[in-house]
């Protein structure tokens, strides 16, 4: 099995599978202009934080960490920070200095609050950054440098029976090669948490797993909702999933069989090897963005009935085992596993084929999500704004 790909070596030792300029608008006021700057330049990624001064407390820490996490992702070669809050811009910039990437900060204030001047400044600074990083060449590197996020969305029973176990085989193999992987979506551990707890590396990690699940369960109970109709959602139910337990048991198969090293908070950096859990919301954009902020260079994303959303900073490889979905979504599914579902091919065959495709994507082959730009990164909130 191929364990090498061509990646971008960063000065801090991390490896990017893409080499892009991240244009990150860190205040809501600068979002529209920043988007224009990104649209007018080549090879950019765009992240838009729609919030600003009203964010306080734990939410503020979470948001700042996510901005820093997105910017530090190894797929980002350089960063253009755009802010309507100069001290916040300086704070973010200072936190990125140890990443040794080219970084520029521009503010609406230095343009006398004139968005058109900001547009021009952004085009000039952003253009220079792209020119600088475009000289970096791909080099042969090991998959041990990869962290991958594992996601499932708009699931059906084919996800839990076939697509997610295939993902689990890939995660196991990556961990054998020295890489790391993460699953999130805490509410989808409910009813399967005893199986995750058995794999915890210590009693402390075991207790973190049970506390995270109990927190989400109590949260839904306190808000007076029944999970039915919310999770499993209407599409899940229509496709054949009946309860959260059934969905969870299928969900956790994507985590493979390795020891669980730790439970991370949403967007928390993965700085060790092995299998991790992320205590995080389950809706795809929020869940996936936690993986990009944590430093994952790539995500694997299984779907039952189809789900067009993908990560923006880290490419998502989309696949399904549902025969009807595989027939219909030619320009969304990077890989089709219906033949495994129908018993015509083995799980091992499919996991080898997806592994090879993953190596290609790490070396530069584009996913459908990238080709159609069906991608975004979002910020997770836990509280109110002032």
């Amino acid at each position, binding site marked *: 099995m191929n364990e090498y790909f061509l990646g971008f070596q960063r000065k801090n030792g991390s490896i990017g599978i893409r080499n892009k300029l991240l244009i990150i608008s860190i205040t809501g006021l600068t979002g529209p202009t920043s988007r224009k700057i990104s649209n007018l330049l080549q090879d950019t990624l765009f992240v838009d934080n729609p919030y600003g001064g009203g964010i306080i407390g734990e939410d503020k820490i979470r948001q700042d960490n996510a901005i820093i996490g997105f910017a530090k992702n190894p797929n980002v070669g350089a960063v253009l920070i755009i802010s309507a809050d100069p001290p916040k811009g300086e704070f973010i910039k200072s936190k990125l200095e140890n990443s040794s990437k080219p970084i520029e900060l521009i503010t609406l204030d230095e343009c006398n609050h004139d968005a058109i001047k900001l547009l021009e400044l952004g085009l000039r600074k952003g253009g220079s950054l792209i020119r600088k990083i475009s000289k970096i060449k791909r080099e042969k590197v090991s998959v041990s440098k990869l962290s991958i996020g594992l996601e499932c969305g708009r699931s059906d029973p084919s996800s839990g029976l076939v697509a997610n176990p295939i993902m689990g085989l890939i995660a196991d193999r990556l961990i054998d090669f020295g890489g790391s992987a993460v699953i999130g979506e805490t509410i989808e551990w409910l009813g399967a948490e005893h199986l995750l707890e058995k794999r915890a590396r210590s009693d402390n990690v075991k207790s973190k797993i049970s506390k995270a699940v109990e927190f989400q369960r109590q949260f839904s109970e306190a808000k007076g909702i029944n999970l039915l109709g919310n999770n499993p959602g209407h599409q899940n139910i229509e496709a054949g999933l009946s309860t959260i337990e059934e969905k969870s048991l299928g969900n956790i198969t994507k985590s493979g069989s390795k020891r669980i090293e730790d439970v991370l908070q949403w967007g928390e950096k993965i700085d060790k090897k092995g299998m991790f859990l992320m205590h995080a919301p389950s809706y795809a954009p929020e869940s996936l963005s936690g993986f990009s902020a944590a430093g994952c260079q790539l995500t694997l994303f299984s779907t039952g009935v189809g789900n067009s959303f993908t990560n923006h900073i880290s490419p998502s490889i989309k696949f399904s085992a549902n025969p009807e979905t595989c027939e219909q979504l030619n320009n969304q599914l990077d890989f089709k596993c219906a033949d495994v*579902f129908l018993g015509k091919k083995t799980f091992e065959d499919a996991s080898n084929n997806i592994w090879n495709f993953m190596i290609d994507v790490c070396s530069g082959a584009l996913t459908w999500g990238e080709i159609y730009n069906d991608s975004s990164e979002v910020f997770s909130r836990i509280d109110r704004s002032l």
Partner: protein
Amino acid sequence: MERLDFDAIILKLNDNVGTSIKSLKNNTKIILKLEEELTSFVIKDDIKLCHKFSLIQIRRGDKIFKYGEVIGVATDDIDQGNLVHTHNIQSLYHNDQEF
């Protein structure tokens, strides 16, 4: 060697539901797969792709097993071969449990 076709799968020996891998018609004989073993079974409902059906007679209040694990509880008696879904099973985490 020709690979034998099957219509639905059972994941673990102690499961009391199977899952269809094709759309199945009421009152038809189907082939069930449990690991490498194939058995014949009669379906008593129209079962859409990926939906579940009872392998045995299930009583109201019985636990439902898939993956060898509990996925919920029966809210009604379920005859062998009938569709098992949200109309006759419920999560153990459902508020205002009837059971």
